[in-house]
C-alpha cells in the first residue's frame, strides 16, 4: 500500500471520485491552476479541465451558493473554503439553504454537497487561519460535520461525504496535512459518516477526541500506560454531527472516568454535548466528574503562542493522572 500524507490521501479521494462520477465538480478559490493553497486539489485541473475544476472569484457566499444550485441540479459539488475562518462569509447559505432545502421542499430537492475547509492550529499561520469552530455546524440541523484524524480515514470519510445525499461540512486538520504518512489503499475505501471509532482500548479511563488532537492523546495514553500501567481507551469521533455516542457511552460505563479533548474554545464547545450525552446515558457509571481539556475562550493567539493555546500530550497526560488518582 502506498504511504500517503493526508493531503495526498484527500487528493486521491477527490481524484477517484471525479474519475468515476462526472457529477463531482470541484470549485473554490485557487483550487484549479494552483491546486489549492495546500495542494489538496493538485493535478485535478490538469486531469479534468476547467469544466470540472472551477477557479472561482474570491467570494465564499458565491462559492457555497453556486454549489447549492449545482447540487440541486443533480451534481455533487465539492467546494473548498480556503480556511475554515472564511466560511462565515457563507454561513447564511449553509444555514439558510444547504441545511434546509430537503426539508423546505419536502424531499423534492436536496443538496448533496461537500464543503471542505482546512481548520485548526499548528502550522504557524496568520490570524483567522487556526480556529476550530466545528460546534457552529454541529449545532445546525440539516448539516453533517465530519473531521478526520489521519490520512487513511480522511480519504475514506471524504469519499463517504461526497456520496452522502446531504450537505457535509468536512474540516481537515491542517496540522496533519503533511505531519506523517499512512498506508492508504488505492482500492476504494469508504468509512461511514456518523460512526466513531475506538482507536485504543483500555479499561481505566475513556478519552474522547477527534482531528489533530488524536495524536497527542494517543501519545499521552502510551506514556500513561508506561508510567503508571493505567490503560486509556481512546475514541475518535470522526463525525461530530450526527454525533455517535454509542462507543463513548459504552466505554464510560466501563471506565467511569472520562476526559474530552478538543482544540475548540471550551465554553459551548463540542465537549459540552459529549458531557451532556454521558450524563444522559451513563450517569450512574460515572465515578468522577468528566474533564474537558480544550482551547480557551479567547481569540486564537498569533502563532508564537499557539502551542500554549492548544491542548498537548503533556496537558492530557497530567489531566489523565489526576483523573485516575481521584
Amino acid at each position, binding site marked *: 500500500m502506498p504511504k500517503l500524507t493526508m493531503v495526498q490521501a484527500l487528493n486521491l479521494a477527490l481524484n477517484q471520485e471525479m474519475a468515476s462520477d462526472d457529477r463531482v465538480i470541484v470549485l473554490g478559490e485557487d483550487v484549479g491552476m494552483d491546486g489549492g493553497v495546500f495542494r489538496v486539489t493538485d493535478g485535478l485541473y490538469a486531469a479534468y479541465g476547467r469544466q470540472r475544476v472551477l477557479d472561482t*472569484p474570491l467570494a465564499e457566499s458565491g462559492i457555497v451558493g453556486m454549489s*447549492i*444550485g449545482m447540487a*440541486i441540479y443533480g451534481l455533487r459539488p465539492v467546494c473548498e473554503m480556503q480556511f475554515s475562518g472564511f466560511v462565515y462569509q457563507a454561513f447564511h447559505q449553509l444555514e439558510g*439553504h444547504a441545511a434546509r*432545502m430537503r426539508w423546505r*421542499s419536502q*424531499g423534492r430537492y*436536496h443538496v448533496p454537497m461537500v464543503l471542505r475547509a482546512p481548520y485548526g492550529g499548528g502550522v504557524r499561520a496568520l490570524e483567522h487561519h487556526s480556529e476550530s469552530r466545528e460546534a457552529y455546524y454541529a449545532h445546525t440541523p440539516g448539516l*453533517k460535520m465530519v473531521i478526520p484524524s489521519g490520512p487513511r480515514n480522511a480519504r475514506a470519510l471524504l469519499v463517504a461525504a461526497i456520496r452522502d445525499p446531504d450537505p457535509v461540512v468536512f474540516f481537515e486538520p491542517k496540522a496533519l496535512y503533511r505531519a506523517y504518512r499512512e498506508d492508504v489503499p488505492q482500492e476504494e475505501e469508504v468509512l461511514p459518516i456518523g460512526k466513531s471509532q475506538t482507536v485504543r482500548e483500555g479499561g481505566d479511563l475513556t478519552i474522547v477526541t477527534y482531528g489533530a488532537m488524536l495524536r497527542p492523546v494517543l501519545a499521552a495514553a502510551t506514556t500513561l500506560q508506561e508510567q503508571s500501567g493505567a490503560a486509556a481507551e481512546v475514541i475518535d469521533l470522526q463525525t461530530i454531527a450526527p454525533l455517535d455516542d454509542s462507543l463513548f457511552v459504552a466505554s464510560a460505563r466501563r471506565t467511569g472516568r472520562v476526559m474530552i479533548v478538543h482544540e475548540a474554545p471550551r465554553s459551548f464547545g463540542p465537549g459540552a454535548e459529549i458531557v451532556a450525552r454521558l450524563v444522559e446515558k451513563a450517569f450512574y457509571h460515572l465515578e468522577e466528574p468528566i474533564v474537558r481539556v480544550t482551547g480557551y475562550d479567547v481569540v486564537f493567539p498569533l502563532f508564537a503562542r499557539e502551542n500554549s493555546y492548544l491542548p498537548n500530550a503533556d496537558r492530557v497526560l497530567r489531566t489523565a493522572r489526576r483523573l485516575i488518582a481521584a
Partner: protein
Amino acid sequence: MPRRRIELNDHIAHLTILDEKGAVDKKLDPHLPPALLLKLYRAMVRGRRFDERLLDLQRQGRIGTFPPTSGQEAAQLGAVAVLQPEDWMVPAFRETAAEVWRGRSLESVILAYGGFSEAASLDPPGPTLPVSIPVGSQMLHAVGIGWAARYRGEDRVALTFFGDGATSEGDFHEAMNFAAVFRAPVIFLCQNNQWAISIPRTQQTRSPTIAQKALAYGMAGIQVDGNDILAVYAAVAEAADRARAGGGPTLVECETYRMMMHTTADDPKRYRSEEEVEGWRRKDPITRFEIYLQRRRLLTKAKIAAIAQEVLEEIQAAVDAAEAKMRTIGDPVTIFDHAYAELTPALRAQREAFQAEQAAATKEGSDA
C-alpha cells in the same frame, strides 16, 4: 496619455411597448399568439383575485403572514411566460403569480401560508425552487443551476426573481459576478417595486437605475416598464435567447409597484403617501393589458366577466381543499420528516420522545 475617458462596452436601454393608456408600439410588439395572451391575462387576474382572497383569509386568522403580489403581475408573468417547461425558476418570496404559472397549486400556497411544511409535497417535480426568504440569497442558486445545465449540455436557462431591496445584499453582487464570469445562462429579474418594506428605492442605492448595475459585471442590462407585460416578455425573451446562445446572463430591471402592504404584518401608511399609490394605480398592468386585448378583439366585456367568474371559482375550490386538508393533515410528528435522507440516531430518539410526550399529553387530557 493623461486623463482620458474610458469607453464602456455596454450601454443600458429602457424599454416600453404598451403604455399606461393601452397604446402599443407596433414596431416593438412581440406579437404573442392569442392563446398565450389570453392565458397571461387570466393568470394576471387570478393573481390579483387570489391576493385579495388570501388577505381575507389572513384577516380572519385562517392563514398567517403572506406577501401580496398585486401590481406586479406583469413583471412576474411576462417573465415566466418566456420559459420552457424545462427551464428553471428560482423565486424570492413575492412571486406567487409566477409560481402558479409554473404549476404550483393555489392549494399549496394556502397550505404553506397556513403554516404547514407539507404544502411543498403538493408541488410538481418541475424545475421551480421553493420560496426563498433570506433576501438576495437565492440568486446564487440560479447561477449554480445555470452552470450545471451548461455543463450537462442541456439547453436550459435559469430565471431568478428578486426585489430592489435585494440589490443591496452582498449575495446579489456575488451572484451577478459569478454568472458573468462563468457566462451562466441566467436571467436576473429585478422586480423594482420601489419599496423594500419602508425603504424607498432612492434610499436603497444612489445609482439612478438598477439596470446600470450590470455595467459593474460586464453583463447585459436593461430597464423595462414592469407594468407592461409585452415589454417584460420582450426583454426576457431577448435575455433568454442570449443565455441559450452562450452569451451569458442579463440583468432585467422591471419598474413596477407594490400596490398593497409588504406583508400582512406591515402598515404602509407609516411610510408612504396615498397619492403615490394612486399615481401607480393609473399604471396598473392589468388595466392596460385589458385595453390592449380588447382593441385586438381578443377580449370582450362578456369574456372578461366570464374569466373573472372562473377565476373566483378556481380560488374557492382551492380554499375549500386547503382548509379541508388543514383540518385533517394529521400528526405533527412530521416535523421530523426530511431532516436528512435518513433520521439520525439522535433524531430517532427525539422522535420517540416526542411521540411519548404526545401520548402522555393525550392521556392526561383524557384523565382530566
